[in-house]
């Protein structure tokens, strides 16, 4: 609760600190426009064309349903990854043998590119939400798993001894000693996993040729050679990621990690 109030309290100051980020965004826009002037609108539509296309798009119902569907899929993939990766990671980290054995499996999972996974998923499960979510989980789960594993492996015996010396009950040891440490590993891993599932979801939608989602709209834009629309869709994805990252995750991160150096 306290943490929540602190997050809200710090928010204006946090926004103010965003000026640097905004400046660099504008620089990016300028370079983008320069690219347009050199390459022409078919290759790289200008920021202006793109924003017009975006504006028009935002007035249609379809884009909102597409965004909603894509968000829903990636959230499912993300949540499953975090729950599964966190749970199994802690479990594997608790046993030396399990952590040694899981390493190669995770390396394999991370080594196979998501684009290969979606093909396999399509072969196994056909075109469905299931295939897409499966791909997201396979791509994001190892990240969280490794975080949780490392967090559990690096639990300090010294702090454990300390808490035992006070005859601390198990529940309190979990909440006060183990959890904060493991969480400090799982949290950043989850942020990476979220970014991963957001990127992979669109790719999966496109490759799976589902009729819905941002990926599907992207496929349509491609078949019509409609670069401004394609660009606008990319923009939507980026804006979403930025919003989640900076409006939602970053303030939480500041609050929960303020004890760190």
């Amino acid at each position: 609760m306290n943490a929540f109030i602190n997050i809200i309290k710090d928010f204006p100051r946090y926004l103010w600190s965003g000026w640097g980020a905004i400046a660099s965004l504008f620089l990016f826009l300028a370079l983008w426009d320069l690219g347009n002037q050199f390459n022409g609108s078919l290759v790289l539509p200008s920021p202006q064309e793109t924003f017009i296309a975006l504006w028009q798009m935002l007035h249609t119902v379809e884009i909102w349903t597409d965004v909603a569907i894509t968000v829903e899929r990636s959230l499912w993939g993300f949540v499953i990854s975090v729950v599964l990766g966190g749970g199994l990671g802690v479990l594997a980290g608790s046993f030396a043998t399990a952590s040694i054995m899981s390493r190669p499996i995770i390396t394999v999972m991370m080594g196979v590119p998501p684009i290969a996974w979606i093909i396999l998923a399509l072969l196994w499960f056909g075109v469905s939400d299931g295939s897409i979510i499966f791909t997201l989980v396979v791509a994001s789960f190892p990240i969280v798993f490794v975080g949780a594993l490392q967090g559990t492996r690096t639990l300090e015996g010294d702090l454990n001894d300390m808490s035992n010396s006070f005859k601390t009950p198990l529940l309190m040891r979990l909440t006060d000693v183990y959890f904060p440490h493991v969480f400090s590993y799982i949290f950043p891993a989850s942020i990476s996993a979220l970014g991963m599932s957001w990127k992979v979801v669109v790719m999966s939608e496109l490759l799976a040729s589902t009729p819905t989602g941002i990926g599907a709209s992207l496929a349509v834009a491609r078949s019509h050679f409609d670069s401004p629309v394609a660009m606008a869709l990319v923009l939507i994805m980026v804006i979403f990621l930025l919003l989640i990252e900076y409006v939602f995750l970053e303030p939480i991160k500041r609050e929960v990690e303020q004890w760190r150096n």
Partner: protein
Amino acid sequence: MAQLIIKNLYHKFGATEILADINFSLAQGKVISIVGPSGSGKTTLLHLCGNLLEIVDGEVDNSFSSQAFAFQDARLLPWQTALDNIAFGLKGGGVAKKQRHKLATKMAFKLGLNNDDLAKFPKDLSGGMRQRVAFARALVIKPELMFLDEPFSALDIGLKQELQHLLMGLVVNEKLSIFFITHDLAEAIKISDEILVLDADPGRIVKQIVLDRPRESRDEDYIFNTTRQLLQDPQIISTFELNFKKK
């Protein structure tokens, strides 16, 4: 009456013998100090006595009903504020939040910490503050027996003196017993009933000094003279290799 009795205690890490044939006892209301060169096994002995290390060879008989530690490294929870760290033991003992914060704050003030310090995370505390937080965490649960591993090593002389007095008050008034590790001979002479000198390789008790004079009447002169006397003792000279340093 509660006491801590150590009989024929040996300890090894791997193949290295760390402690050999340790025997002593600590009665209620008494202070025993361990002095000895760095690496002689003082911390190991403390952990064995406090049941933090498994006893392989020998006997440790501890009949105190409660005990608390101030570790050589403070061992604070980095994700909790100084206040919550001090209240850690109380929370484990089931004391309600308001009450434990009240008790922790009171104890912190006694040790010269202020409200500002209490709101900080360990990373923002000075070494001496961290040491005091760890010390407060042990004191605040009012244990019968305290294991203190160089608890004042990072403090200035003023604070050190203050906290020594605080401890001695508890020994006299509350019958607190203390297992005390220090590198400071004068400090040991000031507060102990008995000093054990531990020599290294393997750690063994080579000298046992009983201080008869009541603590209240140990003035500067007494402490100074006794320290000087000890520093001339051949056993101490060889244990700490004092001759070597003179050359």
